[in-house]
């Protein structure tokens, strides 16, 4: 097959000593910054760009790409260990991952995250390899009405994220969307709710909010009780996922891969949305949804697979169309450009070595990452034994450092602290952070897409276009089904009966 031939050529490029070395350096740095909260692949790649000026383009891209997808491996580490999302794409992992750590199951959580990442990453590369041009074209069919319906679909998932009172969960969701309206309205150009602050003109960042609610909020909640020596007092039970864990996670991983890969292709969708969707879907489809939020391993497996699968998906759009679907890809595009290469329709014909070499090195990189990350689990787990009165200042230090490194803006640190207080109060009064953050991410896109679509002049545009129409129907069905639990349960029972 043609593809196989190209792939073999790609491996011949990727397996040179030089490229292997830089692939390793890339994934190593990627893992490191993925673990470190706030410092992300975007900032790092831009810093290392000048270093690559003198290097061969293929080698530079191999290394820089390695940093990017490597970060998706490391991001889950701090989410699980200390409830601080290392990357935006690991925010949702905090929910169940951290709970698992508190129950002494940090090892299995980290393990399944690593394996899920590997499977998601590798599978998405296969998809990239085989389907890139077709998928890219299909992604272009998504215009404003389709984005609106997709976001609406995503928001119906919010109801599935709530464990407690639905009204409270909805308040969080509404609050999240409301907060996301702060800033410049792209459709009319005016600024809303900014009180004249130019920092707020761009709105409230997801990362400061998430690190505030999860990281700082968790610290504040813990130190309020008392400065115990150890917050993680549960006995450590095993370093790796058990067989049962694996069986539980096999479908979440498959679904996570699909979600991540396909959603990662869409420009503007970002890497966060696939993770939230995966979590909500897993919770919805699970036989024991009440376990979610308390340490369900599926809640770690699905999202972590999704965020790695999204890297492959985003590369589809970047490499085939030359359009970066998210911020990480935008900086990778910058790296290409600096080396005089413009990804796009001509990339395959003009620079086949670069395309296939990068793909081959991504396979290699994923293997390297699994090998790197697994032994580290033992070390990470030891970290949890550090006395909390030393650990919590370090956590706060990292949050501080991390948020500042985003935009070099101290006001974002203050925003994070504000959200920390909010997160602390939220926990005290029985509200949840996940619906809030999901709404913060989806809200703006929902609103923009809605208003953009209406500019075309036809209010029924959402129903007249096929993709949009289908998504709306599915959303409607999803919204309705909880109202008929009997029907749903009967169906499940039937399905279960037929399985045995």
């Amino acid at each position, binding site marked *: 097959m043609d593809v196989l031939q190209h792939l073999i050529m790609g491996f011949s490029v990727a397996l040179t000593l030089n490229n292997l070395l830089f692939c390793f350096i890339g994934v190593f740095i990627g893992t490191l910054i993925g673990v470190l909260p706030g410092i992300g692949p975007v900032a790092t790649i831009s810093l290392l760009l000048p270093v690559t000026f003198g290097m061969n383009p293929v080698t530079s891209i191999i290394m820089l790409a390695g940093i990017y997808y490597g970060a998706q491996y490391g991001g889950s580490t701090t989410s699980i260990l200390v409830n601080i999302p290392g990357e935006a794409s690991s925010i949702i992992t905090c929910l169940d991952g951290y709970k698992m750590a508190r129950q002494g199951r940090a090892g299995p959580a980290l393990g399944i995250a690593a394996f899920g990442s590997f499977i998601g990453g590798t599978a998405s590369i296969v998809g990239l390899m085989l389907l890139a041009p077709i998928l890219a074209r299909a992604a272009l069919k998504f215009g404003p009405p389709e984005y609106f319906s997709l976001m609406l679909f995503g928001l119906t998932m919010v109801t599935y994220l709530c464990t407690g009172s639905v009204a409270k969960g909805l*308040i969080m969701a509404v609050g999240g969307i409301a907060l996301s309206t702060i800033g410049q309205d792209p459709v009319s150009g005016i600024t809303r709710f900014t009180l004249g602050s130019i920092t707020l003109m761009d709105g409230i960042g997801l990362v400061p909010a998430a690190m505030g609610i999860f990281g700082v909020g968790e610290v*504040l909640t813990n130190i*309020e009780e008392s400065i115990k020596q150890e917050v993680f007092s549960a006995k450590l039970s095993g370093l790796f996922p058990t067989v049962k864990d694996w069986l539980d996670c096999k479908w979440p991983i498959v679904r996570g891969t699909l979600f991540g890969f396909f959603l990662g292709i869409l420009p503007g969708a970002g890497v966060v949305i696939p993770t939230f969707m995966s979590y909500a879907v897993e919770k919805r489809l699970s036989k024991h949804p009440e376990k979610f939020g308390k340490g369900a391993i599926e809640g770690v497996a699905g999202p972590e697979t999704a965020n790695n699968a999204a890297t492959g998906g985003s590369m589809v759009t970047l490499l085939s169309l030359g359009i970066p679907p998210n911020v990480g890809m935008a900086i990778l595009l910058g790296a290409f450009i600096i080396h005089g290469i413009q990804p796009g329709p001509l990339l395959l014909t003009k620079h086949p070595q670069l395309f296939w070499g990068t793909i081959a090195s991504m396979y290699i990189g994923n293997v390297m990452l699994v090998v790197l990350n697994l032994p580290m689990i033992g070390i990470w787990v030891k970290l949890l034994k550090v006395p909390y009165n*030393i650990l919590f200042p370090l956590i706060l230090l990292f949050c501080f450092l991390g948020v500042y490194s985003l935009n070099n803006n101290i006001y974002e640190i203050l925003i994070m602290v504000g959200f920390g207080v909010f997160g602390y109060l939220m926990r*005290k009064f029985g509200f949840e952070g996940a619906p809030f953050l999901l709404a913060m991410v989806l809200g703006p896109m929902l609103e923009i897409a809605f208003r953009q679509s209406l500019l075309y002049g036809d209010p029924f545009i959402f129903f007249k276009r096929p993709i949009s129409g289908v998504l709306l129907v599915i959303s409607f069905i999803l919204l309705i089904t909880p109202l008929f639990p009997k029907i749903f349960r009967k169906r499940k029972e039937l399905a279960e009966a037929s399985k045995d």
Partner: protein
Amino acid sequence: MKHRDLISGVFWLAIGMILSIWSSGYEIGSLVQPGPGFLPLGLGILLILLSLIVLLEAKKSSATGQAASLPSTAGGWKRVAYTVLVLILTASFYEKAGYLLTFFLLMMLLMAGAGGQSWKRILLVALFSTLGVHLVFVLLLGQPLPRGILRL
């Protein structure tokens, strides 16, 4: 009556009202041509409705157990407030003082406030963590952290 739900219900009710009033100051437009104020106004109204539901649920449920009383803090809120204050303080002079000094102070203040540690240990941990940041973030990763006016 669940007190904590009463408090949060009232809180969100207030937020909903503020939001609705504030957003009506922007152009609302119509359903087919929404303006910038449209969505926030809708959200504000939703918040009001939802918080009323929460308040109703709170009134309905019987007063049982600890959920009925105010969320307790057992004096720990002082630690929380102190930590928040330290964070705000260090953030305000971060760019002027530079990262080395700020982080050192941050660690010292936080650990000192937590209590229960010899201040030899506090000093050591603060020193090592600051140096660690310097090594990993500045030397290894090359992050441009603020050097402050003392140009450390």
